[in-house]
């Protein structure tokens, strides 16, 4: 177990350096964030195997040993970088749907996530299956859970206003939406499926159908 870097923690020396300060960013937090930024960029470009901890340390102006004070191992650093990049991608998409009607929320989140992946090369690498060992971790990503909460809250709100059918359980719908979003994101990244108009229209229609409070005018 590595010792935390000096100058950063005030209390428990075993605590994560990033959690040491409250309010303003401490020097340790700043260093940690900088390390993550570099790690996202490096791992995103060259992948887990093609990147060494020492090159990340060098770019951050740190020794390799100093990096290990923040992240126990290359694996931990990689996982933290994936989480950070995925979180940034998800937060950007969440901001983009601030005014989207509930019935279009899920397809819109998908569109924004797919469109934003170009800015998140590490998240894209993982989704594209180029880091197969990391894929199962995606299912439990904290940021994905935030997205799920956002969907549940928005559906609940829309339901109270009569915009979503009353027989929807917002939490359960959000659980399903979370799983579906992740799966479509993976398959779209790898296969490019659902990029065809026929499939896009289909996905849009079924999510609208799931939430819309009434039937559409009858078909002829």
């Amino acid at each position, binding site marked *: 177990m590595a010792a935390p870097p000096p100058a950063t923690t005030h209390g428990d020396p075993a605590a994560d350096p990033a959690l040491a300060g409250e309010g303003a960013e401490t020097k340790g937090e700043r260093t940690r964030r900088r390390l993550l930024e570099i790690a996202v960029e490096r791992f995103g470009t060259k992948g887990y195997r093609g990147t060494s901890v020492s090159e990340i340390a060098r770019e951050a102006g740190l020794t390799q040993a100093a990096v290990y004070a923040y992240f126990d191992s290359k694996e931990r650093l990689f996982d933290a970088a994936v989480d950070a990049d995925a979180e940034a991608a998800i937060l950007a998409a969440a901001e983009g749907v601030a005014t989207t009607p509930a019935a279009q929320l899920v397809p819109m989140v998908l569109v924004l996530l797919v469109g934003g992946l170009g800015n998140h090369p590490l998240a894209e690498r993982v989704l594209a299956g180029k880091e197969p060992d990391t894929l199962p971790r995606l299912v439990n990503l904290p940021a994905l859970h935030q997205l799920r909460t956002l969907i549940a809250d928005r559906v609940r709100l829309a339901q109270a206003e009569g915009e979503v059918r009353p027989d929807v359980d917002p939490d*359960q719908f959000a659980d399903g939406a979370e*799983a579906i979003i992740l799966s479509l994101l993976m*398959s779209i990244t790898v296969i490019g499926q659902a990029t065809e108009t026929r499939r896009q229209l*289909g996905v849009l229609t079924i999510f609208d159908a799931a939430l819309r409070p009434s*039937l559409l005018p009858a*078909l002829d």
Partner: protein
Amino acid sequence: MTDLATIAVPSDQPEVDATAETKGERTRRRILEMAVDCFGRRGYRATSVSQIARAASLTQAASYAYFDNKEALFRAAVDADVSDLIDEVSDRVQGVPARDLIPSVIVHAVIALDDHPLTHRVLAGQEPDEVPRLTELPALRRFSDLLADALTEAAERGEVRGDLRPEVLAAGLESLILGLLFSAVQTRGSASERHQLGVVEAFDLMLRPPV
């Protein structure tokens, strides 16, 4: 069983007897069977057309009379394997109530993947160059049509909502099913129970009429 041969015969093949299988069709089917087997076991790169031809008791040159190149053969093999899997799944979900249909299709497809190593390989991302063509597979289009038929019948029986065009619903459901299968294979089935229940509920909501 399967109408694999009918699907696989391209329009530029020499005349086809409407009922009996011609010798050419038989040979073609045999090549495809061998291709599904060889590609499924060793993958695209490690398999040669000559290996497949030999397994089908043909010369390599003779096999090129049926498939222009290795890529075309691979794609036809994937289509045949997917098509087979779809037929098996369709059989197993006969009689399942319409609203349980989609989750049931996914569960049976995941089980059937064990017997379809070529499809499994593709979904697991082990054939990255060929994967982008997946969406063009005729078998998937046929699957979408099967779904649309099932939805039309269920809507007539009042089991699912009738206000949406079945083919549009089917296209959306097909995308979701493919995506979920893909991620189930990629994440090695690590979806939690919460996710699974949520997906079942979401599919039910898509199909059941609003109260």
